[in-house]
């Protein structure tokens, strides 16, 4: 977030400003304490700076406290530690400050108070009183002498006054004596000042006193610590009305006494001044110390916040990093703050997360590879025509592919995790498979291989089976894997190929000598039958007839073999299967079939199919002939032919079913009914159904033989209705057409 650095910058600037203001204020304070002349100029600035400093620091304090409180309430990582550290630092800073403040206040108050003690104050009061008493004695003496001079002057003639005044002044020790008339005019004056000096006019207070007919005497402070005593008395009795006025005299206080009096006066004034200063001093010092304390406290608290934040920040980073790692985020890197132990811890954390990240990447890579391999393996297994089943050591299914289910005729893929013998209870083929496997497992065979023949409802199935033990690991028991393949079709194909070769050789090796044999027999018959005696001729006739007949029979058999071995290209065209079925069935109906009833049922609207019409016709001929031959000698024989649409491997097929009510197939014949030379009929060559099967497979179709529910044989053919359907079936059948699926 962009606001966080801005806030940090703002707080830092404010903090630096507050501390700078505090330092400046304290500096100015010390300057004003040393030089009071700068007070007026600096005091307002000091005041403003102090106030600004206090406000800034207080704002920072409140802001930091609020932030800490908010973090504490929202349980931000590290907030409790931060609160504890702030409390600790504040305590460490505040307690000594308060102690210093308390003792400073005590020292200041007591120190100032010690300047003033009762003895000094009483001594000064006494000194002042003593000085006053001493001076008042002089003042009284001077007033008496002034009064005496006034009385004496009233006895002197007006003309002698000026002379007498000078004498009397010298005798009294006055510095100046002046006689003022009623209108304050100078009647006579005498002074030891320089000639021409004007005597000082009586002041208002002198006049006021004289007007009240009272003498006046006062101690006058002069410059340079000198004193003089001024006296004035009213003049002009009834006898001398021309002298009505006042006589004012000035008596200098002796210099020694003046100096001492001035010293007492000054000391007393200084003491009073100091006493006056006592409370203001205390207040000022208290206020100054309080301001300094407040600034120091706020600065200390702010410093505690800053210090704590800096100390806790790496720990908060570590907590956040640890949480991120716990959530799986290994890419988090913490800023290394310093080269101390915390820095070492953080760099170690970064190393750890980097290694974890690398390890996870490698693990992910490995896992991806394993997953890819596993996916490939699953695809391969799914596409395999070989069944693969992996089992736990307790025979629970770990994995199974689709082919395994198809071979064993049970959906193993969806029963992973189940106990295999339990699954086998509903699947006869699997049950036989498990029985064989269990024999080996109980015997402790770690690896075994065996060909298994399973007997199902519709025939036998031959499997080649191999089993091996799987390597176990921490999470998995060893278990084992069973790989099996359905080789029924393969064996059948091998048999087909062998019989095809036999047929070809028979056609080639046997057919050729048959004609000479037949011709030779007929020649023997023509040449010797008439010339031989009757009884011998009868023997010859019977023998040659038998030879010719059997040769014909052998020719038919060889022709049939030739037909079986022959494999011309298919002549695919569109035709109506239902109509073809009607034609073939009608042909048999028209022939003498020994009372066998033929039934045909075709699905209405059956579309045309794409196939080799001639071969399909041959299929129907063979099936019907096979059925007719099977019903030979059976009373009430019946053959039912059904032609309909059906679905096979999600593909449209035409289904032809030929069912009879004959003896059906016995159990041994059922599994080999489509093999050449396998027949249950006394006259059969054993090639009819083999040829049908060959023709069906050439069309990528399916032929099945089974016994009907009410007895009799049922042959079912499924033919793809189109070229596309044929290709689809070839693609979906196991073995991709190389191996035709067969149920027999």
């Amino acid at each position, binding site marked *: 977030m962009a606001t966080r650095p801005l806030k940090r910058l703002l707080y830092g600037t404010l903090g630096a400003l507050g501390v700078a203001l505090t330092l400046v204020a304290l500096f100015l304070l010390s300057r*004003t*304490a040393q030089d*009071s*002349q700068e*007070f*007026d100029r600096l*005091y307002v600035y000091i005041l403003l700076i102090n106030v600004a400093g206090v406000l800034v620091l207080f704002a920072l*304090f409140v802001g930091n*406290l609020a932030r800490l409180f908010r973090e504490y309430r929202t349980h931000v990582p590290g907030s409790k530690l931060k609160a504890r550290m*702030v*409390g600790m630092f*504040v*305590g460490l800073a*505040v307690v000594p400050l308060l102690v210093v403040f308390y003792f400073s206040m005590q020292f200041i108050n007591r120190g100032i108070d010690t300047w003033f003690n009762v003895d000094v104050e009483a001594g000064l009061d006494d000194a*002042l009183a003593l*000085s*006053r008493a001493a*001076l008042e004695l002089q003042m009284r003496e001077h007033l008496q002498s002034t009064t005496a001079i006034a009385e004496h002057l009233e006895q002197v003639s007006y003309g002698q006054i000026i002379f007498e005044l000078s004498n009397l002044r010298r005798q009294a020790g006055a510095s100046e004596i002046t006689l003022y008339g009623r209108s304050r005019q100078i009647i006579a004056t005498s002074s030891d000042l320089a000639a021409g000096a004007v005597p000082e006019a009586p002041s*208002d*207070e002198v006049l006021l006193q004289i007007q009240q007919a009272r003498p006046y005497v*006062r*101690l*006058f*402070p002069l*410059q340079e610590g000198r*004193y003089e005593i001024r006296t004035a008395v009213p003049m002009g009795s009834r006898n001398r009305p021309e002298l009505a006025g006042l006589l004012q005299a000035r008596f200098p206080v002796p210099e020694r006494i003046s100096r001492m*009096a*001035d010293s*007492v*006066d000054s000391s*007393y*004034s*200084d*003491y*009073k*001044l100091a*006493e*006056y*200063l006592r409370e*203001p*001093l205390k*207040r*000022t*010092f*208290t*206020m*100054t110390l*309080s301001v300094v*304390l*407040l600034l120091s*406290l706020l600065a200390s*608290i702010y410093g505690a916040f800053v210090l704590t934040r800096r100390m806790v920040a790496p720990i908060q980073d570590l907590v956040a990093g640890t949480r991120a790692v716990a959530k799986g985020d290994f890419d988090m890197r913490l800023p290394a703050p310093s080269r101390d132990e915390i820095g070492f811890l953080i760099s170690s954390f970064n190393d750890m997360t980097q290694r974890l990240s690398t390890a996870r990447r490698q693990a992910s890579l490995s896992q991806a590879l394993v997953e890819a391999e596993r996916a490939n393996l699953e695809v391969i297994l799914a596409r395999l025509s070989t069944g693969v089943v992996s089992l736990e050591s307790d025979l629970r299914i770990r994995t199974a592919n689709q082919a395994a289910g198809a071979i064993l005729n049970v959906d193993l893929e969806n029963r992973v995790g189940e106990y295999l013998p339990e699954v086998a209870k509903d699947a006869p083929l699997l049950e036989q498979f498990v029985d064989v496997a269990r024999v080996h497992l109980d015997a402790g065979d770690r690896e075994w291989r065996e060909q298994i023949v399973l007997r199902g409802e519709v025939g036998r199935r031959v499997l080649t089976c191999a089993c091996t033990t799987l390597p176990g690991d921490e999470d998995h028991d060893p278990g084992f894997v069973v790989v099996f393949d359905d080789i029924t079709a393969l064996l059948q194909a091998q048999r087909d190929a062998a019989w095809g070769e036999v047929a070809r050789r028979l056609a080639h090796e046997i057919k050729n000598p048959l004609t000479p044999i037949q011709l030779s027999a007929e020649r023997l018959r023509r040449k010797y039958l008439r010339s031989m005696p009757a009884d011998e001729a009868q023997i010859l006739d019977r023998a040659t007839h038998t030879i010719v007949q059997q040769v014909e029979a052998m020719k038919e058999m060889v022709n049939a073999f030739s037909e079986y071995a022959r494999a011309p290209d298919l002549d695919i065209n569109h035709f109506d299967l239902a109509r073809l079925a009607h034609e073939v069935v009608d042909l048999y109906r028209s022939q003498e079939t020994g009372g066998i009833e033929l039934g045909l049922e075709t699905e209405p609207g059956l579309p045309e199919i794409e196939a080799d019409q001639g071969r399909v016709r041959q299929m129907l001929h063979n099936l019907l002939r096979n059925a007719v031959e099977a019903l030979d000698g059976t009373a009430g024989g019946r053959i039912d032919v059904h032609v309909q649409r059906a679905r096979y491997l999600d593909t449209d097929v035409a289904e032809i079913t030929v069912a009879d009510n004959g003896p059906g197939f016995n159990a041994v014949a059922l599994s080999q009914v489509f093999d050449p030379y396998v027949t249950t009929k006394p006259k059969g060559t054993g090639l009819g159904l083999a040829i049908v099967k060959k023709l069906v497979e050439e069309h990528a179709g399916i032929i099945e033989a089974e016994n009907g529910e009410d007895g009799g044989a049922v042959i079912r053919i499924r033919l793809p209705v189109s070229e596309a359907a044929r290709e689809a079936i070839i693609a979906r059948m196991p073995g991709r057409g190389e191996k035709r699926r067969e149920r027999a």
Partner: protein
Amino acid sequence: MTASPTFRIAAALALLVALGAAALAQDNRERQGYFNVRSADTRLVDGVQVLDARLQLVLSDEALAALNSGVPLIIELRLEVIRMRRFMPDAVDAELDVRYELEYRPLSQRYIVRNLNSADQDSFATLYAALNSLGRIESLPVVDDSILEADARYRMRLQALLSTQQYPAPLRILFFWRDQWQLRSDWFEWRLDR
């Protein structure tokens, strides 16, 4: 609920500030005192402009208490000779500060008024007499008329105030906050007759 240490400290500081403010606060029942220039005029005597003025100087209770406790008071008269200009701000051509010290001497129990400019001093038995004497300015030489521009017009103004600059810092910090020590008259102005 217990208060946090930070809260307690903040509360203590707030209390301290409040107490300090209360201590500095003024008691309104006391006499505030005031200075006032009731009249002032100049006249030309022997080429020198001399001032005659009447001032009303009433000290506040605190100033009075300080005076009686031995604290000398400085009463200052500020005079300014201002040349009036038509299109520009007026210029102060001359300034004169006359400082008087008023002091109580406990031994003689007299109030001394001392002109700090001339070192002349006088003493009075009562404060009233001393202030009355201070408030009666007669023939105080202000400025030599010859130094003023002949064809310029001038005005003068006078202010009386109680100065506290001479006091030690603790007192000045205290006086800074006290109205009773902020005694200062308004400026009194008049045209200078030539």
